């Protein structure tokens, strides 16, 4: 709907309004960045004052924060779990979705509805029992958690792939079978490349969820392996007293990779979210 506004002054007013709103949106992050360079005693007292000779602490907060929570280790675990789980989810659920869409048996239909059903079940419902099941099967480690993420993320991802597979022409697949391809080759070289747009969407939605997820990794592997959200919550300490200096610095370090990732694949992320919401 490109109505276009005739009067120039209205255009200026609206642009100004947008700019003010944009500043309000950026402001909280800016304040955190500002405070990450202040001495920790100045943060709670005067969070909104700019940096000056008194409150400036250089990188002191960063150094103490990184040491306190083992930031780089946490970053490594977060990265490993996110990349591993997203790869597993994309590969296995796309295969499953193709199979259960193409093979029309009762079993496949039931499975499809089970996946849909799992989408409306909140995590708290299975929080305790899933942790116990995973413990019993020795999946409470950085490799096992990938299987858990595959299982818990299967519902939404399979559902989204199924919706897309239905729109993929079946003739192409049949042609490749006639040419002598096995089902695996057909999927690998014919179907999967056609799924590319939805693969990006599914990958981004799952990456956002898993990178930021707190409770599942905390319950499953939190005592031995801290991801970034766990490490930040850990800073709060047992008695509710927070080292605000280290906290601010770690918040900046936690946000930084997300913003870099966002600016690099902004187009895909925004499109993925729009498509994902419409389908899911």
């Amino acid at each position, binding site marked *: *709907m*490109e*109505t276009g506004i005739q009067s120039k002054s209205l255009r200026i007013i609206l*642009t100004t309004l*947008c700019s003010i709103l*944009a500043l309000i*949106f*950026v402001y*909280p*992050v800016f*304040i*955190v960045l500002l405070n990450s360079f202040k001495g920790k005693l100045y943060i709670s007292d005067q*969070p909104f004052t700019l940096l000056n000779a008194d409150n400036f602490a250089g990188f002191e907060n960063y150094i103490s924060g990184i040491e306190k929570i083992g930031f780089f280790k946490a970053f490594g675990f977060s990265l490993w779990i996110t990349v591993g789980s997203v790869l597993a989810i994309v590969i*296995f*659920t796309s295969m*499953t979705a193709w*199979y*259960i869409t193409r*093979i029309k048996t009762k079993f496949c239909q039931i*499975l499809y509805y*089970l*996946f849909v059903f*799992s989408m*409306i*079940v909140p995590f*708290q*419902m*299975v*929080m*305790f*029992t899933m942790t116990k*099941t*995973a413990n019993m*099967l020795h999946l409470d480690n950085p490799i096992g958690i990938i*299987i*858990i993420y595959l*299982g*818990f993320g299967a519902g939404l991802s*399979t559902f989204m792939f199924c919706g897309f597979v239905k729109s993929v022409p079946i003739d192409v*697949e*049949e042609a490749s*079978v006639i040419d002598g391809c096995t089902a695996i080759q057909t*999927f690998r070289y014919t179907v999967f490349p056609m799924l590319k747009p939805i693969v990006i969407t599914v990958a981004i939605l799952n990456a*956002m969820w898993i990178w*930021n997820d*707190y*409770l599942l990794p905390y319950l499953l592997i939190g005592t031995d392996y801290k991801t970034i*959200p766990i490490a930040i*919550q850990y800073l709060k300490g047992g008695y*509710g007293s927070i080292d605000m200096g280290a906290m601010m610095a770690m*918040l900046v370090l*936690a*946000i930084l990779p*997300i913003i870099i990732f*966002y*600016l690099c694949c*902004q187009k895909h992320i*925004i499109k993925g979210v*729009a498509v994902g*919401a419409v389908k899911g």
Partner: protein
Amino acid sequence: MEKSLKKYFPVFVLPTLIAFTIAFIVPFILGIFLSFTEFTTVTDAKWVGLKNYLRIFEDGDFLNALWFTVRFALVSVISINVFAFLLALLLTRGLKGTNLFRTIFFMPNLIGGIVLGYIWILILNGLLAHWGVTITYDPKYGFWGLVILMNWQLIGYMMIIYIAGIQSVPDSLIEAAKIDGATSGRILRSITIPMVMPSITICMFLTVSNAFKLFDQNLALTAGAPSNKTAMMALDIYTTFYGRVGWEGVGQAKAVLFFIIVAIISLPQVLTTRNKEVES
């Protein structure tokens, strides 16, 4: 093709199915079963019938959390959708810098709940310091703090979906209405809003279910303080499970109720708003 594909069941479906069984099917069934038992680990469960469900109401925590969640969902669903829709209208007028604004408004959505919580602790405590209080001083501060946080996080997300909806309204419809002499208010009411009804459905569904399932933000911002008055349902279930020995069965019973509430809310909402959608 079906025949050649069918025998590949172990390759295409089994990995997902195994993970799905471990992470969802078994924990879900076990969760329902355990809500009728007393247990500390899964293996020592003792059948107690409906006792856990009755014990939920022994203290006011669950009802308080339910009431808090309902109020929170109501307020944030309305505010988020109104703001997001207005922003979407602003950003579909071909203003200069539209892409930059869209990028900025969407950014908070990528930041995880725990990190968001601590960002807003800094800002809100900084503001409340003028009155010499903190966010955990009074439940109403926690409530509005969560509403503001949720708005900041989700407005950009919903805005993206609304923008996609508004852009899919055919220009010819708008042009025709203009020729017929419709005012821009009339065009908005009689064309744009009915045409973007599918987006409104999706956004309502997403905001309500996000509001009900909110956990990380709640844990980081107030952790329920003061005295569980700002704990939402997900957090209340968590504290019942892991904060009180001997209450695991009650926690699981609360989780089952929580699941039923979330399911009931998401289903009719989708169905009723669907009826108002324009067939296209």
